[in-house]
C-alpha cells in the first residue's frame, strides 16, 4: 500500500520540475543572442524586410504574450515551426529521435558490456596489475574528448584503413533501401523487413559513432562498478559468506553484485544524460541525423521553436528517467524514503 503512495508522490513531484522546465526553456531560448528575423532576412536584408519577418514570427510582441502563446500551443501539442528546417518542430524531433535513441542505446550497451566486467574484475583483485590496467584503460577512455575520438576513428578506420563505412549517417541510401519504418530503429526495422544486407550496412554505420560515444560512458560505469563492488565485497555479509565457504563466483555475482546494483543504477541516469549531451558532438562528426546535431544547429541559428521543443522533449524524457531511477532505487534500498 505504502509503496503505491510512494510512487504516486514521486510521480506528482515531477510536475513542478516540468513547469520549471517550460519556463526555463522559454527564457533560455529568448536569451539566445542575435535576432532570428535579421538572420533569416539574410543577404539582402533591409529594416523593412526584417520587420516583416519579425512580425511573421510573432517576435514583435511582448515576452508575456509570447509565453502565453507558447503555453497555449504546448497544451495543444504544437511545438511551433522550426525556422531552419521549415518543418513543424514536433515532426522534426519525431523523425530524429529514433536515430539518437539507437545511437545512445548502442553506446550505452557498448559501455555496459565493457565497463561492468572491467569494474568487477578490478574490484575482485584490487591493487593487482589487472586493477591498474583496468584503471588506466578506463581513465584513458574517459580522458579523450568525444569529438576527438570520433574524428580519430574516422581518420583511422575510414580514411586510412578503409574498413569502416563512410561517416554519412545511418544508412547509405544510394546503395541500400531503407526498410519501412516500424520502430524507427534501423537495426530492428531491417530485421523486421528481413533485409540482412541493410541490417549489416546499418550496423556498420553505427559502430564507430557508438564506440566514440560509449568510450565516454565507460569510465563512470566501470568506476562506480568497481567502487560499489569493493564496498559490497568488504561488507559483513560478504565476509560471512566467505567464512561460510560459499563459492567465490557466487559471492561476487549473487551477493556482491546485487548490493552494488544500487549505485550502478543511480549512475546510469547521469551517464545517459551525459551521453545525450555528448551525442551532440558525435552526431556532428558522423552526420548522424539525430536530435543532437539538430539542437546544435538550432542554438547556433537562434531557432527559438526548435530549441524549446528539443529541450522540452529532453526534459520530459529525463524527468521520466529520473523518476524511474529513483523508484528503482527505492525498491532496491529500503533506507531511502520519500516523505516530501
Amino acid at each position, binding site marked *: 500500500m505504502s509503496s503505491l503512495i510512494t510512487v504516486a508522490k514521486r510521480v506528482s*513531484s*515531477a510536475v*513542478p*520540475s516540468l513547469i*520549471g*522546465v517550460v519556463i*526555463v526553456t522559454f527564457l*533560455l531560448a529568448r*536569451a*539566445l*543572442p542575435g535576432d532570428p528575423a535579421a538572420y533569416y532576412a539574410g543577404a539582402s536584408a533591409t529594416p523593412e524586410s526584417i520587420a516583416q519577418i519579425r512580425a511573421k514570427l510573432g517576435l514583435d510582441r511582448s515576452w508575456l504574450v509570447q509565453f502565453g502563446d507558447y503555453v497555449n500551443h504546448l497544451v495543444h501539442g504544437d511545438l511551433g515551426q522550426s525556422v531552419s528546417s521549415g518543418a513543424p518542430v514536433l515532426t522534426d524531433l519525431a523523425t530524429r529521435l529514433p536515430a539518437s535513441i539507437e545511437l545512445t542505446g548502442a553506446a550505452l550497451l557498448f559501455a555496459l558490456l565493457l565497463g561492468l566486467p572491467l569494474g568487477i574484475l578490478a574490484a575482485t583483485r*584490487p*591493487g593487482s596489475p589487472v586493477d*591498474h590496467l583496468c*584503471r*588506466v584503460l578506463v*581513465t*584513458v577512455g*574517459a*580522458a*579523450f*574528448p*568525444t*569529438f*576527438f575520438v570520433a*574524428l*580519430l576513428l574516422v*581518420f583511422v578506420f575510414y*580514411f586510412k584503413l578503409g574498413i569502416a563505412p563512410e561517416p554519412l549517417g545511418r544508412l547509405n541510401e544510394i546503395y541500400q533501401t531503407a526498410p519501412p519504418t516500424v520502430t524507427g530503429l534501423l537495426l530492428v526495422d531491417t530485421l523486421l523487413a528481413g533485409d540482412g544486407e541493410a541490417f549489416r550496412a546499418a550496423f556498420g554505420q553505427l559502430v564507430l559513432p557508438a564506440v566514440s560515444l560509449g568510450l565516454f560512458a565507460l*569510465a563512470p560505469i566501470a*568506476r562506480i562498478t568497481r*567502487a560499489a563492488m*569493493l564496498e559490497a565485497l*568488504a561488507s559483513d555479509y560478504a565476509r560471512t559468506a566467505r567464512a561460510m565457504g560459499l563459492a567465490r563466483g557466487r559471492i561476487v555475482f549473487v551477493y556482491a553484485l546485487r548490493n552494488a546494483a544500487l549505485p550502478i543504477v*543511480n549512475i546510469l541516469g*547521469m551517464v545517459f*544524460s*551525459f551521453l*545525450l*549531451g*555528448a551525442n*551532440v*558532438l558525435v552526431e*556532428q562528426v558522423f552526420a548522424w541525423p539525430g536530435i543532437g546535431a539538430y*539542437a*546544435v544547429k538550432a*542554438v*547556433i541559428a537562434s531557432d527559438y521553436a526548435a*530549441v524549446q521543443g*528539443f*529541450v522540452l522533449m*529532453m*526534459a520530459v524524457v*529525463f*524527468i521520466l528517467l*529520473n523518476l524511474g531511477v529513483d523508484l528503482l532505487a527505492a525498491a532496491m534500498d529500503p*533506507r*531511502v524514503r520519500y*516523505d*516530501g
Partner: protein
Amino acid sequence: MADATATAAFWSEARHLAVENKLTLVAGLILVGLCVLAIGGAAMAPYDPLTTDVSATLKGPSLAHWFGTDALGRDLLSRVIVATRLDLGMAVGAVALSFLCGTTLGAVGGYLGGWADGLIGRVMDTIMAFPLFVLAMGIVAALGNSVANIVLATAIINLPFYARFARAEVNVRRELTYVDAARMGGNAPARVLARHIVPNILPTMAVQASLNLGWAILNAAGLSFIGLGVRPPMPEWGIMVSEGASYIISGEWWTFAFPGFALVLAVFCFNLIGDGLRDLIDPRRRT
C-alpha cells in the same frame, strides 16, 4: 578526525598508498608538473605564444619547435605551456563553485527534508532535465563566450551531481546511530549537519570533485569544438585541439596531437587522483 593520532594515521596511510599505488604517485607527479607550468606560464615557454611566423607555418616537430608550429607559425609547445594556467584555472573554478554550492544545497535538503528538500530537488531536477552539454552550450551561447561564462555554465551543469549525491548520502546517514545520538544529545540541525554528517560525506564528495575536474576540462573542449570557446588569441587546449582537428585529414597530426595530449594528460591525471583519493579516504579499502 580531529585528534593528532587520526591525523598521523591519515598521513601514514597516504604514504603507504603512494608507495603501493604507483599510478596515483605518477598522477601526483604529473599534477605537480602541471601546476608548475600553470604558475610559470609564459616565463617557461621558449617562444611568445602569440607571435606568428608566416615563414614557418604548419612545420612538424623539430629541435627549434619541439611540438611543431600551427597554421600561423606559432610555437605549439609555448602555446600548450601557456594554456595550462587557463585550462586548470577554468576547471578548478567551475568545480569549486559547483562543489561548494551543490554540496551545501544537497546536504541541507537531504537533512531537513520537507519543502526545502522539495524546492532544491525541483531546481536540480530542472537542471538535470537538460542534456548537460546542451545546457552548457545554451548558457554560453546566451551569455557570450567569455572565460567567466564557460566556468559558470560548467558549474551549473555539475551542480546536481553534488547536490543529489550529498542528499542521498545525508538521507542514508541521518538515520544512522551516531547521528541519532547527536540529535538526541540536543544538537541543532545545523550543528548535526556540520559536525557529524558533512565531514563524513566530504571524502566521497572530494572523489567526485576530482573526477569532475576532468569533466570540466572536457566540457570546455566540447564547447570549443562547436565554436563557443574562449576568445582568440588566448591559447586554450580545447580550442587548439579543435583547430588541429581540421588538419587530421591533411596529415598535420602535431597540431591536434600535442594539445590533445596535454588535455588528455590533465584529465587522466585528475581521474587517477580521484581514484587514489578514494582509496586514501575509504577505510574499507585497507588491507
